[in-house]
């Protein structure tokens, strides 16, 4: 029996035998994880193939696994929708500006809060970190933003998110793990605090800054609640908000399609004329695409980020 059992290389290089129950377990494990992977991946794939397939077939639910009669008219039409380009600009703008400020702040404060010389260092660190654990609530927050004239204001997306305690903790932990001698050597050479930060610390904390950058950028790109609370002028709508409107307010989508039809219906063949479904799915792809594109490159930074956060959350 033992001789017949398959041997497999364990993670540590030790060969050990698999009995039938273990082999059963592995088959079930592979099967179950294949299902998990499918469930997580298929929805994205489904929307993608429907956004590039014949709209008529797509509307009739014929496009399930392979794209049919591929065309890219939907993307052309979506680019022409009033306000969508504006929303993309707002989303991109807040992502780039917001994430940049968050990263610089997290790196700088993370470093400053390791400086023993700083006046009241411990107190101010706690002052910042404590904000992770309480919240005035959305109404007081909204009223504050209104008093500060940050409603219907692009900077309302940016300023409240500049200082993010969690990211500061990540950076501080990382700075603490670097040799103190580097800073001391620079200081003996007469470097001031800022010089130490820019010349010594900044180059060595790049890995953690990458982690913070991806968290901050994804957070800004995905933000929805602040638009909902603070913004009433369509000029400042983000892609997320516009997409939500397209899903819930079928009328606004119908209006868009009708206005397009009057100018384009002659040129576009019937099969490729846009439907509510095709527009909705195409916009979804546009909104999800940036995440999909950066995700593989930053994946390796996640683990380090989440682990440091876990140690000192």
């Amino acid at each position, binding site marked *: 029996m033992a001789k017949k059992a398959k041997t497999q290389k364990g993670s540590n290089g030790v060969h050990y035998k698999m009995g039938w129950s273990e082999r059963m377990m592995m088959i079930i494990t592979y099967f179950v994880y294949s299902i998990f992977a499918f469930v997580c991946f298929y929805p994205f794939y489904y*929307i993608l193939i429907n956004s590039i397939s014949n709209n008529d077939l797509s509307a009739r639910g014929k496009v399930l696994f392979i794209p049919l009669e591929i065309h890219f008219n939907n993307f052309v039409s979506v680019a022409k929708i009033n306000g969508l380009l504006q929303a993309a600009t707002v989303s991109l703008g807040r992502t780039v500006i917001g994430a940049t400020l968050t990263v610089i702040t997290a790196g700088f404060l993370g470093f400053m809060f390791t400086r023993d010389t700083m006046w009241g260092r411990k107190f101010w660190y706690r002052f910042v970190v404590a904000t992770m654990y309480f919240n005035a609530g959305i109404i*007081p927050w909204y*009223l504050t933003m209104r008093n500060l004239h940050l409603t219907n204001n692009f900077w309302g997306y940016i300023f409240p998110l500049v*200082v993010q305690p969690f990211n500061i903790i990540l950076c501080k932990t990382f700075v603490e793990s670097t040799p103190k001698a580097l800073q001391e050597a620079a200081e003996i050479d007469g470097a001031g605090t800022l010089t130490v930060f820019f010349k010594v610390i900044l180059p060595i904390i790049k890995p953690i800054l990458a982690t913070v950058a991806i968290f901050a950028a994804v957070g800004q790109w995905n933000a929805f609640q602040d638009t*909902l609370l603070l913004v009433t002028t369509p000029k400042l709508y983000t892609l997320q908000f516009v997409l*939500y409107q397209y899903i819930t307010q079928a009328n606004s989508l119908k209006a868009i399609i009708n206005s397009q039809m009057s100018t384009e219906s002659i040129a576009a063949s019937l099969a490729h004329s846009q439907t509510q479904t095709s527009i909705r799915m195409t916009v979804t792809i546009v909104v999800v695409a940036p995440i*999909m594109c950066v995700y593989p490159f930053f994946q390796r930074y996640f*683990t380090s980020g989440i682990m440091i956060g876990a140690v000192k959350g």
Partner: protein
Amino acid sequence: MLKNKRKQRGIKEFLLVLPFIFLVALFSYYPLYGWLYAFYDYKPPKTLQQSEFVGLKWFVTIVSNKVKTREVLRVLRNTFAMSGLSLAFSWFPMIFAVFLNEIKCVPFKKFVQTVTTLPNFISWVLVYSIAYSIFCSTGAINSVLMNAGLIDKPIMFLQSTKGIWFKQWLWLTWKNAGWASIMYLAAISGIDEQLNEAARVDGASRWQVIWHITVPSLLPTYFVLVMISLANFLTNGMEQYYVFSNSFNKETIEVLDLYVYNTAMGAGGYSVSTAVSMLKTFVSMVLLFASNSASKLIRGEGFI
């Protein structure tokens, strides 16, 4: 002389940090003054000074006004159901990580991990868009069932309130489980290999290694995460429930955070909404300190 210089430097460093401290004070501490609104009868065009001071009226309303009480109880039931489900299934990411770790085919393992982590990085609006595409009356599932002739009328997955708490838990898990398992995977890779080897030399089966070595070494991490979710029991966030709510399911999907939003922004009840969120904050604070002390008591260290 040297001490003086050190002090000067300390002040200078403080001044460098001051602008950021100002931002924190402005956006995190200053809004606390807004709790005052809970003690006034505030109606938007008026200012707080012009509003009437009503003392504890709104807090009393919550317990004495029958309609309001029933509303709050309904919302609390939803909140407890959603948070309770999450808590009851909080072991899922751990088990997910344990068995994923058993897979020795590295490309497959990497693929599963990549694909299951992805949903964590999309917004709730996108999740809803996906849900809509798959489950709406003309979505993928209904198309398949209709084309196969299994049903004549599309099933209203998104409107029906049947099992809504569980459905919402499923979406939450779909989004978060892969991400949550990363922490456990990292913890597993930190387990001393000699333990595993010793167990195998002694003839332990895979099951036994999982049950007697892997799982016990993950329990401390699991415990901390349970404590954190206990501290956040009343805080589900409003985004998920806001995007999934519609006129059919709003009674059963409305959690506390969404209720606070709806009461103020929908119905204009700024003051009563602030009162509710104030109470929520106090209870959450108690929960936070209680679970932190519990963690200190059992593990010897807290998580704050």
